[in-house]
């Protein structure tokens, strides 16, 4: 296993089990479990982000890559790029909670964050996982120090989400020493500043394979920079390969098995995107609150107005939930990784298996996180009024930068399909006892109102909502499977609704567990949890109602809606008063916080 920086190790769980199992607060990892070292690493990262990255933001946005390279080298010197690198190659090889924490805290600029994440994630991990000792010896130190920047070239103009469809071809040279690559890649992050590319091509048009290509290799040309809506300071270019001769020793991984690299790396990209979304949201809300505190309207700071407070409360609750779900999932991955034998020749494969186990959760972090962040940056822009729409304030940049998060690392549509699809797949494979759970809920709800389960504690009502959300999720999954059977996968809209249900169950579950694990130390956390739960259940209700409306009609529809009403019955909380209290603490602190004397 990698070096655990976390001192608390979460309970081992199976991927997807959040829908059918009830964990105790002591079973999950939460941000309150960070060790002193993790807090210091977070602090170093935040200082670097606030003092170095943000102070260079105009140069970064102007695509002054010398500045970005300098920052990348500085990040390398601090060790921020060595966390996933094995010790034998000079890395730190720390746990995933720690590397996620860095991704979270470094995300104050969409542009720099993408450059950094593309480098340490899709740029370096394929080499770390699949490289030969010679390849690692040659490249890893340069990449970990930031001297070289890495890029990953999979997509093509007509192969995005359907990555297996690539047309780039490789053929072995007559002397057997090189592969000759021809084709065009598109949307390649970091291309304009990279020294090493991981390029995917099909050998003889069939065998999907990855290659390591150094910049400057004859036949490799980096095309013009794309003019993008956001993350303008990151580099995105096409790559053109014309008879590009790549030495055979630069084949990465096994010939014909490049798809393993391509797909396994995506899970990491997804959970890290979720973390980056949380970090970006935290930073954006700070901008929004800072502005709102100073902006006077009608003789008062606008933070004294209810609709302004509501925006702050909604954003804060989203961030609180984001932190809860991101670190719960990564903590579960670390728990799985903690038993992997590092000396095993299969180590890298085992690591990927552990992460793939949580593919559903990774996809949820990706789509849920990017959509939470999108709401936060929108609220921040709105808090600025007209000033949010001009470039002098960071709100405008954050708003543009956030949009890409719904597109890359698999579109949110693809990730919703993966979320529901993998749950079903895991159930079919017998790796998740979903079918018995569905049957149990179906029997229970069909047999009429059962006994009410009484929950305790300050979040008793929210626990009841969560229990019903889980039932609704199972019920809807069951009803949809009954209606569509094996064809469910083709009903993308229903798959999407089920994905929303699953996401809210995972997030709300994480929010409640995190809050209960604090044992009342933070009254503010309880308010944030309640506020988030109210929103979450509205989404659950809406998704469930749409599933039922799609899969049932006539008497069946009436029966299912009766069940729906029974499971959604609850008394609403006073979101206005709780929202005002949340906002008051955030405003007082001048940023998102979960500690506050006003709480």
């Amino acid at each position, binding site marked *: 296993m990698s*070096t655990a*920086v976390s001192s608390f190790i979460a309970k081992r769980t199976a991927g997807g089990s959040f829908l059918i199992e009830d964990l105790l607060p002591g079973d999950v990892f939460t941000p309150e479990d960070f060790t*002193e*070292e993790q*807090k*210091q*690493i977070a*602090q*170093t990262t935040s*200082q*670097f982000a606030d003092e170095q990255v943000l102070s260079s933001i105009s140069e970064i946005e102007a695509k002054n890559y010398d500045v970005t390279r300098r920052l990348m080298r500085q990040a390398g*010197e*601090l*060790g*921020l790029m*060595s*966390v996933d690198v094995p010790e034998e190659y000079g890395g*730190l090889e*720390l746990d995933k909670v720690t590397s996620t924490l860095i991704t979270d805290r470094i995300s104050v600029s969409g542009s720099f964050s993408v450059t950094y994440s593309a480098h340490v994630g899709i740029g370096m991990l394929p080499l770390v996982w699949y490289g030969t000792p010679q390849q690692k010896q040659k490249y890893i130190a340069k990449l970990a120090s930031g001297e070289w920047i890495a890029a990953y070239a999979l997509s093509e103009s007509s192969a995005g989400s359907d990555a297996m469809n690539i047309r780039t071809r490789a053929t072995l040279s007559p002397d057997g020493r090189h592969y000759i690559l021809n084709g065009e890649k598109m949307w390649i992050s970091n291309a304009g500043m990279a020294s090493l590319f991981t390029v995917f091509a099909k050998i003889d048009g069939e065998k999907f394979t990855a290659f390591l290509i150094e910049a400057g290799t004859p036949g490799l040309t980096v095309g013009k920079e794309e003019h993008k809506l956001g993350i303008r300071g990151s580099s995105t270019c096409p790559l053109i390969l014309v008879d590009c001769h790549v030495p055979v020793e630069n084949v990465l991984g096994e010939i014909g098995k490049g798809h393993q690299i391509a797909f396994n790396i995506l899970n990491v990209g997804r959970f890290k995107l979720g973390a980056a979304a949380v970090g970006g949201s935290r930073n954006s809300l700070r901008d929004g609150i800072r502005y709102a505190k100073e902006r006077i309207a009608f*003789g008062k700071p606008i933070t004294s107005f209810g609709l302004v407070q509501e925006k702050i409360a909604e954003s804060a609750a989203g961030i609180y939930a984001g932190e809860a779900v991101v670190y719960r999932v990564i903590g579960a991955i670390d728990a799985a990784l903690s038993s992997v034998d590092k000396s095993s020749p299969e180590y890298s494969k085992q690591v990927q298996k552990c992460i793939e186990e949580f593919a559903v959760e990774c996809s949820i972090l990706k789509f849920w996180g990017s959509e939470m962040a999108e709401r936060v940056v929108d609220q921040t822009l709105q808090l600025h009024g007209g000033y949010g729409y001009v470039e002098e304030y960071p709100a405008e940049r954050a708003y543009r930068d956030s949009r890409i998060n719904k597109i890359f690392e698999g579109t949110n549509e693809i990730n919703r399909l993966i979320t529901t699809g993998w749950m079903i797949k895991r159930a079919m494979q017998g790796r998740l006892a979903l079918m018995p759970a569905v049957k149990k809920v179906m029997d229970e709800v069909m047999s009429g109102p059962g006994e009410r389960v009484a929950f305790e504690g300050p979040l008793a009502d929210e626990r009841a909502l969560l229990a019903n959300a889980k039932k609704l999720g199972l019920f809807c999954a069951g009803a949809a499977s009954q209606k569509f059977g094996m064809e469910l996968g083709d009903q993308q809209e229903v798959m999407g609704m089920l994905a929303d249900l699953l996401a809210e169950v995972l997030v709300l579950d994480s929010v409640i567990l995190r809050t209960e694990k604090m044992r009342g130390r933070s009254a503010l956390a309880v308010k944030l949890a309640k506020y988030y739960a109210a929103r979450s259940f509205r989404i659950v209700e809406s998704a469930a109602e749409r599933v039922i409306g799609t899969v049932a009609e006539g008497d069946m529809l009436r029966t299912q809606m009766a069940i729906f009403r029974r499971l959604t019955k609850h008394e609403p909380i006073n979101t206005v008063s709780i929202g005002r209290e949340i906002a008051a603490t955030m405003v*007082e*602190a*001048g*940023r998102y*916080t979960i*500690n*506050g*004397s006003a709480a």
Partner: protein
Amino acid sequence: MRILTLIRQVLDAQEGVHIAKNAVELNGRKLVIDTMDEYGVEEALRLREHGLQAEVIAVAIGSARVEEALRTALAMGADRAIHVETDVALDAIALSSVIAQIAQAEKAELIFCGGQQSDWDSQALGAATAERLNWPQATWTRALELSGSLLSGRHDTEDGVESFEVQLPAVITTQQGLNEPRYPTLPNIMKAKRKQIRKDPLDAYAIEPKLQTKGVAFQTRQRLRKILDGKDAFTAASQLVDSLRNEARVIQ
């Protein structure tokens, strides 16, 4: 040689100041090493990196939470730390006694101390410590160089720059511009985990505070927010003159 660097922990400048129970609320607030003390840590590390054989010891006196600040100093590169743990608020004169005792016990030859504490603006600790030890002090330093046991440097005065030389042992106070403190790197953070923080009770130093803070309050500026009806400019102008003369008393 042993170098002591004094560490004080203060409220992060980004945090809002809040008063509870007659004191500035620190619970749940972000606390950091006082920046000027951080210059001292950085300078000690630089002297060592320029070839000086030295052990750098971070010293702090204060509540359990001060350990965080000492951990930061260790993560920056200090070799070990001494934490005199107490919840008693000590004034600079009392603190200097503790530090002088530690300096003597450790046979330290150089002490770094921030020129001014960023929370209460106190500048006394360095001077008081030098007085206790009967050592020379060089204050508000901006550049330092050590050759043998002769430390040379300069410090700014209001109208110019003064250069100085001093034989160790000495107390040096720092200021902005002396150096740019490093961020703790990840490898150093991980290494610091294994470094020693010695915990001493305050009793071991037999001191008592001579000065007690009895309360703190904000200076508030209240605005009257008086708006004059401007429909009739002449009346408004005479009302304004009247207010300025009789209420605000800013004109005769």
